[in-house]
Structure formats: C-alpha cells, structure tokens
C-alpha cells in the first residue's frame, strides 16, 4: 500500500487550504442566518466557542494519525484490528465523504439555479460542474492541494468587497452583548458543527503530508482561518441587516452583495456567484477524491480513477432523475450534521481512548 502515498506529497500550506476549503465551501452562505435564528446578534460568540471545539477535535484526529505515519486510517485499522475493521472504516469514511460531496454539489446547483440560470435544468449544471471536478480529482491529492491553494490566492480580494456594505452598517445591532445570557450562545454552537465538517480529511491526507511533524500546527491554522472568515462575514451581516430582518434571508452572505452599487455594474452578485463556484468547488473536488480513495481501498485497488469515473457518471445520471428540493436539501444537511457530529467529534475521541488502552495493553 505504501506506493500510493509516495510522489503525491502535499505541503503544509496545501493541507491547511484543503481543510479550510472543505469547511468553508457552501456552508458559509447560510451561517449568519442560522446563528441569528438561535443566538440572535450574539451568534458571533458561538463561532469563537465552536472554534475551540473544532480545533480540539482536529488535534485529536492528528494525534490518532501519529500512530500511523505511513498509511491512512483504514490501513492502520487493518493493521491493528484486521482486514475487516479496515474495510469497515473505509466504508464509513467513503459514505461520509460521499454525503459531504453530494451536499456540496446539490447546494451549488441550487444556488446556481436560483441566482444565475433559473430555467436551465439541474442535471446540465451538474454535468458542467462534474467535468472540471473529474479532471482535477483524478490526479490525486497533490493536484487537488495545488488547486485549493490557487483558489485561495485568487479569492483573497473577496473580503475587501464585503467591507463596502459597512457604509450602511449599524453597529448598535451588536449591543448589548449577551442579550439573553449565555444559554442561546451555547445553543448557537450547534450551528457551527455543519460549517466545520471536513476535519476528518486528515484521516486520509495525513500519510500524504510532507512534514508530518507540522500537522498539529497546520490543523490549528486551518481552523483559525475558517473561523476567522466566519467571524468576519457574520459580523458584517449582523451590522448590516437588522436583527429582526436577517432571518428573512436564506443566504445573507449572497443577498448582502445585492446592496452594493457600482457605477459601472448593476447586480454585482451575478459575477460574484459565478466566481464563488470556485470557492464552492473546494468542498466537492477534495471530497470526490477522498470518497473514491476510500471506496477504492475498500475493494483493494490502488488506482482510484475507475471509481471516480463511475461516481461522476452516477451523480450525473442520478441528478437527471432526481434533484433534491429546498426542503430535501435541508433534510440532507440535518443528516450530514448528525453524521458529521458522530464521525468528526465522537468517533475520534473514542478511537483515541481505544488507542491509549491498546498501547498500554501491548506494553504490559
């Protein structure tokens, strides 16, 4: 199995951007509304708490992977507990990444349909999205990592545009802090789960890392990057929209762009959403690779391209017959959140405890 990982090393920076990309992706769009619904204008405090929790979870994941520097989690599980344990882990991860991928893709298709191409059928948008996905994902983690890095660099100007609505901002909305005490803020933390999903990519990516000793610092950096962007965008939405009004918008992060007026362009959100497709792709392109990596592992294959082809074609065909509605999308998100809570937060803790016990037993 070792051969799979050589020649595909990714740098620490690519690793940071890969993780942040999977987290931010489509999840950021509705985050300010969800926080406002549960925690009001104090929702931004929930982000900071959520940041602490997901950083801890990421560090636990890295700690687990330190036991397996030369193989992914299925490799390790197969080595320690036997082949079937490895297969079970691979299956679980493949299913989870597939969920992540499907959620990202369907959300992107829905947003494209609402804002850009309302009359174009979903499956056509899906096929158009899948073509570049296949082209990038088939080359393995190094190219996917480079792609993420490139997209992050060319998106660096986006925050500047979000400063423009501050002209019409009302900082009074944020006062008083802790309006209703800590309880809504703590309830709001659960809204951070969905936007921080993606940390388990480490289970697969760890063996590809060039500098494994820096993995801990890298996951802290990626979580900080993610949460800083969430905090920035949430605060801007909160001071721009009235607290009574923000819950009216499904995706306040996009709607806020509509209020920007330039002399030379009307409806600035149109080029923006087209550009955002690249940001959204940071979810499904890595997830696509990760899914096929795990599914290929399951069948004992080292080349994941065959599965990638099957997955792309299956997704396209499935979209032709069935496109989730807004409501079903919501259900998918709920399932994904529950699934993610299990696999990204609870599973690593249990696994770490198991490893501790296992190591002690072996030593004695």
């Amino acid at each position, binding site marked *: 199995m070792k051969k799979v990982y050589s020649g595909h090393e990714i740098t620490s920076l690519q690793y940071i951007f890969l993780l942040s990309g999977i987290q931010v992706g489509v999840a950021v769009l509705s985050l300010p509304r969800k926080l406002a619904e549960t925690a009001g204008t104090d929702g931004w405090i929930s982000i900071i708490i959520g940041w602490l929790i997901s950083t801890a979870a990421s560090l636990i994941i890295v700690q687990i992977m330190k036991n397996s520097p030369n193989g992914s989690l299925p490799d390790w599980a197969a080595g320690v507990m036997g082949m079937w344990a490895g297969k079970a882990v691979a299956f679980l991860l493949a299913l989870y990444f597939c969920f992540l991928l499907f959620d990202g893709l369907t959300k992107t298709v829905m947003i494209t349909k609402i804002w850009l191409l309302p009359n174009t059928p979903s499956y056509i948008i899906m096929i158009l999205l899948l073509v570049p996905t296949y082209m990038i994902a088939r080359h393995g983690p190094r190219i996917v990592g480079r792609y993420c890095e490139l997209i992050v660099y060319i998106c660096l100007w986006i925050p500047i545009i979000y400063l423009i609505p501050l002209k019409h901002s009302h900082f009074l909305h944020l006062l008083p802090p802790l309006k209703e005490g800590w309880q809504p803020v703590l309830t709001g933390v659960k809204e951070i789960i969905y936007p921080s999903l993606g940390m388990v990519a480490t289970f697969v990516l760890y063996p590809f890392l060039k500098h494994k000793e820096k993995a801990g610092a890298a996951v802290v950096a990626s979580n900080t990057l993610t949460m800083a962007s969430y905090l920035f965008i949430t605060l801007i939405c909160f001071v721009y929209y009235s607290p009574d009004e923000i819950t009216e918008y499904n995706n306040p992060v996009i709607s806020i762009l*509509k209020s920007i007026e330039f002399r030379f362009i009307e409806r600035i959100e149109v080029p923006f959403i087209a550009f955002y497709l690249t940001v959204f792709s940071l979810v499904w392109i890595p997830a696509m690779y990760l899914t096929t990596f795990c599914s290929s592992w399951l069948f004992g294959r080292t080349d994941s391209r065959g599965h990638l082809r099957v997955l792309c074609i299956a997704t396209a065909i499935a979209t032709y017959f069935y496109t989730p509605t807004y409501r079903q999308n919501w259900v998918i998100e709920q399932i994904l959140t529950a699934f993610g809570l299990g696999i990204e937060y609870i599973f690593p803790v249990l696994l770490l405890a198991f490893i501790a016990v296992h190591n002690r037993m072996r030593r004695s």
Partner: protein
Amino acid sequence: MKFRLLLTLSAVTLICVTTSSCYDQLNLENASTPLAFGMDLNEDNQLELYTSTPIFSKNIRKKSLEINATIRTLRQSKAVQNAQSPGSTQGRNFQVILVGKRLLQHEGWIQMLDVIFRDARNTVTDRVVAVDGALSEIMFLNPEDQPLLPVLLRGMITTSSDNAETVSTTAQELHRQYFEKGITPSISQVKVKDHKRILVTGTTLLTRKGRYAASLGYQESILLNTLQKKAKSGVSLTYSIPGKSKTGPFDTDTLSFTAQKIATKIKTSYQQSRFQFDIKLKIAADLTEVMFPYNVLRDNKQLEPIIAGLLKSQIEKLLKKFQRHNIDPVGFGLYARAYQYREYKKVQDRWAEALSDAVFHVSVEFDINAIGPVK
C-alpha cells in the same frame, strides 16, 4: 487504446450535445427592461400597475413606453406587461419604485413588493418614492425638455439625498425599516407641480405597517438625516432670526449656514417608566448668507445661541410630530435595544406607541466657523 479514445470522444460529444444550449438565453433585442414601476389604487380600490420602458429606436420620437394595467399582484402582472410591450419584460433594472398617494392610505403594500426580494434576478437598490398625487399623472407626463422619467427621478433623488434634503431609501433599506421593530419607514416624496413639473418635496413618513403618516419638508428632512447621523458636511439650513426687521416683501431677517461638522449623540435611559433620550447636537458651520448688518466680533457670541435655540426648537417640534403620529423614523428603538434592552424587549412589538410616551432632552451647540469673504 482505440477503445479508450472512442470512449473519451463519445463522452465529449455527449457532454457537448446535452449541455451546449443555454436555457436562460435572452437576446437584447427581445428584452424589454422597464426602468421604473409604480403602484397605485384606482377609484374602485383596485391595484394599478404602471411601468416606464425606454425605447431604443431611431424612428420613434417618444423615447419611452408607458404601460398601465389593473393587476392583482406584481408577478401576475407579467403577462399583462408582456402583452403590451415589444419584448419579454425583465424586472432587472428598476431605478425607482413609485407608490401613489391612494395606495399609501392602506397598510400592507410593502408585502406586495415580495417579488422584488424573492426573485433573485431583481435589483434591490432601486429608490422607493412616494408620489404626492395620482400616479397616472406623473407616469404619463413625459415633459419634452426632461430626460426619461426613471432617469430624472433617480437623479433628483440622488442629488437631493446627497444634500440630505430627502432620504435615500432603497428597496433593500425599506425592507430593513419594515422588518426592524425599532424604526418606521421613511421614503422620498415627489409631486407634479402645475401639471408639468416634477419636483422632490421632501420625505414621506410611514407607520410601522406602511400607511402614510406625515410629510417632511426640506429643512425637516435635513434634521431627520442629522438625527439619523446620515447628514454629511455641506448640508445647508436657513433660519429667520427673531428681532431682525423685514424690508418689504423681502426676508431680510434670514441667515443661512452650511454645516461643516455635525456630531449627533443620543443617550438612552429609562426613568419613571418612560424612555428618556438625551440628544446632543454639535454643529460647526460657515455662514453663507446673512441679510442683516452683522458685526463678527461683537455679534458672534449673541448669534450662536440664537441659532442653537432655533435649531433646538425645530428639532423638538419635529420630535413632537413623530410622537403625535406614532412613528419613529429616526430609529430610536435601535438605541433603546442597545442600551435598555430589558425595557425595550417588553415594548418592542408596539415600539412606536412606547416612543410617543418618551421624553426627549435636546441640546444644541452651535459654532460659527467662518463668515465668508465679506464682513
């Protein structure tokens, strides 16, 4: 190898064939983009829609096409619009949204604008303008010496609101003011004078549900913008100084100044089961017009408090007006929520009534910065 090539080629062909046509294609020649739309009620209280669409054609003397129809809702009216215009109607470039006076007598018209926000392709930066009069008059006016109505109105509203003489309420802003419990909506107001001239007359204030409450003139609009902290330096105010004499028909007792620095501070407290607002206004201004003899060194100290007093009494009158009509266009509710959250929360659903019971303490500090090149 041959098989793979064949497979790739067929995949490419399949993708090209299925995805090459763009379903949302619309040629510019087939589009008709109204730049303004208006809503009003007719004598039978039926909703009337008006739109004004520019016509790009050499041979047509009149540059715009006006459509008028009785409708049920805005989206439902699309068929009627398409039936009357040369192309497919697109609501993507509205510059202004006009609402007639009869419509403003009723609550709930803001809900009728739902399509503006729900259909993502519509613009939300269009200015909302109240028409003091019937909408049919302004829509079909078409004066020969003026640009197209939407362009004219948008330009007038932009320049007037830059000078704070009216508010600059976009559809987005109206949405905010409508949903925010601590503020009531205010929109620009225009009217047709002598059946030929369109002019901005100030600001229309609406109740929480959107019904017409009161109107403000230029000077009151400036003060409203000042209280909202939206007035920029450069706004100009004129006052008659009491005790100075008039000469014949001329108001030689007046004085104008341009504010250079405006600082508004609003403090909130809650005492004796009433909200208390301390409003501190600090204005440093240049005199731009003085009609009466005036000695800088001697009269400065006299004049400053007099002007401050005039400003104060006008602001107090304005606040009384708000309280009388049960409205809060300034957004005092935002301050109440930020600083007196517990008390505000009890009354937030009927904030405007709570405000009518509030006490305002206004203090104005006025400094003359410069008097211009003449003594």
